[in-house]
């Protein structure tokens, strides 16, 4: 690009852009104006429905019915894209590249990743030969740190992990040397540690390839991490634009102020929970050495995926127990074991002195009255064609509790307890928002008055404000009914807010079990530290990602290394870690960790 020399010139300038939802006559974007200089990274942040994605699509000339631009201009190097659609078409995919948040959906599953990259480049720049395109693709795959790029070039998307697919999508966008890269929520589906790596990568690429980046996301800490400047979008308007530090120190607009205020913190002192537990109480659920593997077919015949390997923890009555870990660490498999949906291959799960793993199906059904699960997906977890009242009465019918009128009363009582209007009794859940659906899920679980509620990523689909409301609800219900909660989550800030004790999982193992304060201020396992270092937060970090995490992704659960599973990414790994897998050991004060570094003889 010839733009490199004129750093001060603007690459993109948007003037009074207005986008209208034609059916309803509602403006989704109102008078949006901003400039973007070459090589600049600009974050756009706002809650869901604030028009972020619409903005991204308007810039990429990718608006479709019923959305239409009704005013303003989008100038790229002084030429208006809206007045000159032919020019816009030549730019799309060539000078303006777009990366979305769903890499698995964007890659063609029937073509190798390499072939797709080459095809993409040759489609926008037919003058480049296939061999050159191929060479470029491999070079870029190396640039985004895909290991063994030459070999990976010939692999299919399903052989890539989520993080690698997202990297491949970035390569796809960079193939044509774009001047502007629009990154729409690219880190959302990724785990924190992988997302942190992608963010780092974006910055490096920005320097190496002199691409301006419009980085769209919904999390303020991520936005501040990623960009030179942050633009806040609220209700379709740009309310503020500042450098990240200035934005956090002196927010100009009330909405930004509110955003910063609502942000949960990881290391703020003076929480009133996490009281010391008295050890004499009997555990309500006690998990001992649980393991579960699944069979899959791989290239060399059948292979065992060790989803859960060595999980141990106790949950005490009244506890808020957290289980954290990245995707693929076995959280969901563990959830299925804890709820008796599947049986463990080894180890035992005791719920009030009864082994869930070995109980007869009939006994298990009876036990289920006392422990309940709230599922993750607010849309998929409710039967689509049952009325809300019927959904709530179903568990009572299953366990043959009460007569018709009593069940109706109990369902209504549960509805009002979780804050759903009772006149929704006969309506379908279709019109409910995600937050209301999760309330309904909670109501369904608690209508049986269980003692233990397992929350499987219950809050991860909700936005900040709604999460806060539900957490308050959980607290109130706990006070009223004496529930014990197990929160399964990948969200450290959420866990930090509510849990009294936390187990950290890595590749099917519990690597650390510790009280809340202890885990966040004195983690006993390098992986916990790496997780903490990667957590998106505006606070001053206690742990720097550079010190805690090495490049790379977790090893495949099919062929695990003989030693500690984390050794490959651990900066402190030594010989013993490669040969011997550490067991959970007490570090004093209820904290347990599985790391050789904690042995008195080592370090």
């Amino acid at each position: 690009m010839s733009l490199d020399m004129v750093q001060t010139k603007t690459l993109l300038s948007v003037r009074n852009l207005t986008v209208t939802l034609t059916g309803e006559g509602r403006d989704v974007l109102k008078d949006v104006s901003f400039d973007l200089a070459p090589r600049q990274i600009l974050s756009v942040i706002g809650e869901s429905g604030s028009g972020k994605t619409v903005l991204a699509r308007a810039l990429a000339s990718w608006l479709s019915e019923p959305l239409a631009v009704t005013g303003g201009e989008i100038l790229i190097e002084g030429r208006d894209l809206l007045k000159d659609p032919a020019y816009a078409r030549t730019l799309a995919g060539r000078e303006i590249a777009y990366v979305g948040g769903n890499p698995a959906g964007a890659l063609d599953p029937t073509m190798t990743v390499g072939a797709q990259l080459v095809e993409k480049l040759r489609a926008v720049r037919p003058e480049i030969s296939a061999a050159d395109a191929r060479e470029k693709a491999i070079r870029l795959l190396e640039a985004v740190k895909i290991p063994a790029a030459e070999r990976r070039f010939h692999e299919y998307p399903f052989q890539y992990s989520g993080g690698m697919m997202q990297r491949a999508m970035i390569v796809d966008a960079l193939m044509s040397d774009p001047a502007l890269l629009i990154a729409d929520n690219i880190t959302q589906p990724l785990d924190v540690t992988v997302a942190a790596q992608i963010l780092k990568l974006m910055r490096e690429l920005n320097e190496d390839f002199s691409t301006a980046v419009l980085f769209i996301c919904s999390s303020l800490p991520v936005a501040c991490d990623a960009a030179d400047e942050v633009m806040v979008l609220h209700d379709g308007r740009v309310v503020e634009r500042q450098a990240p530090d200035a934005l956090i120190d002196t927010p100009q607009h009330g909405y930004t102020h509110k955003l910063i205020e609502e942000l949960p913190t990881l290391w703020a002192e003076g929480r009133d929970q996490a009281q010391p537990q008295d050890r004499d109480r009997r555990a309500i659920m006690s998990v001992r050495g649980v393991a579960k593997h699944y069979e899959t077919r791989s290239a060399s015949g059948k292979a065992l995926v060790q989803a859960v390997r060595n999980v141990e923890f106790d949950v005490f009555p009244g506890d808020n127990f957290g289980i954290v870990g990245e995707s693929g660490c076995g959280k969901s498999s563990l959830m299925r074991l804890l709820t008796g949906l599947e049986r463990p291959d080894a180890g035992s799960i005791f719920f009030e002195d009864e082994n869930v793993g070995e109980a007869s199906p009939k006994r298990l059904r009876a036990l289920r009255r006392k422990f309940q699960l709230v599922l993750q997906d607010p849309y998929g977890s409710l039967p689509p064609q049952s009325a809300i009242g019927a959904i709530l009465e179903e568990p009572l019918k299953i366990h043959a509790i009460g007569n018709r009128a009593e069940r109706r009363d109990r369902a209504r009582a549960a509805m009002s307890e979780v804050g759903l209007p009772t006149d929704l009794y006969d309506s379908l859940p279709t019109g409910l928002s995600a937050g209301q659906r999760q309330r309904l899920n909670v109501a369904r679980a608690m209508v049986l008055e269980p003692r233990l509620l397992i929350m499987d990523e219950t809050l991860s689909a909700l936005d900040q404000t709604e999460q806060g409301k539900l957490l308050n609800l959980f607290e109130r219900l706990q006070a009223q009914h004496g529930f014990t909660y197990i929160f399964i989550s990948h969200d450290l800030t959420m866990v930090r807010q509510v849990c009294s004790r936390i187990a950290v999982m890595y590749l099917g193992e519990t690597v650390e079990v510790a009280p809340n304060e202890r885990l966040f201020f004195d983690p006993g396992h390098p992986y916990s530290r790496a997780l903490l270092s990667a957590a998106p937060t505006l606070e001053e970090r206690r742990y720097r990602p550079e010190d805690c995490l090495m490049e790379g992704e977790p090893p495949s659960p099919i062929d695990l290394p003989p030693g500690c599973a984390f050794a490959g990414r651990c900066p402190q790994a030594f010989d013993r870690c490669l040969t011997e897998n550490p067991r959970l050991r007490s570090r004093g004060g209820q904290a347990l960790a599985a790391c050789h570094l904690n042995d008195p003889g080592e370090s």
Partner: protein
Amino acid sequence: MSAIDISPDLPSKARAKTISARIWSEAFASTEFRIGLIVFTLLVAAASLYPWLSDVDPTKMNIRAKLSPPILMGEGWSWSHPLGTDQLGRDMLARTLVGLRYSLLIGISTTILMVAVGAMIGLFAGYFGGRVDTVLMRLTDAQLSIPMIILAITILGVSRPTIPSIILVLGLAGWPVYARVMRSTVMAERKKEFVRGAMVLGATDWRIMFTLLLPLVLPPLVFVAVLDIARMMIFESVLGFLGLGVQPPTPTFGNIIADGRKYLMNAWWIATMPGVFLVLTLTSVNLMGAALERARNKIYAGA
């Protein structure tokens, strides 16, 4: 964003009714449903009442009045035979209405039998999977590999071709398609989270299959099955053609059409009248079905 904004401010009065009541009232509000209902009711009433009320005997022959055309449709028509007569001078209106009665009986009960057997087998195969699935699906394949006509000749040739045995043969020949469709939809639904949710609540397999999954996957299947009612009526006439259907002189659409085929050049109405009634019946049933389906989709989509 727009999808969420629309729904909340519906009047709460409409909400107070149960879901199924809302679907029926929604369907009843549409013109198609009413037209379908009126036509269907008239046809059923005529089929069940006319042969009983009027003193015209559908099997009474009158050679002198043979092959007389319907009213105003050619030379020699008369008011006593509104739809004309066949080659033996039997009244077509009476024959068609009695035929409609038998054909409806055979078509509908065969389809019900077919859907019931297919849905059950598909439900079990899809829900339990594994060995149950293998056994049931191989059974289905085996059934599919036997040509229906051979099966019908074998069974109806050995036993007498009475109406129950015809229903049984046709029903047993048709179920594999439904079993396959049912199996695949159940397999897809079964993996969804709400099924797991029900299991965690403590629901038995039986309960999940019949109260949760069946109401979800059956309606589309029934919608397709309505079309099969016509197919089964035709199959009955195929059997009739082979001499294995309902035995003369009892009229069914099958044997009326088979008879009329020979006179198509000079007495088109013999083969046409059953066809007209068949079209009317099926159109009315389909109109009602389509309106119901539309109402269902509308209600479940959140209206």
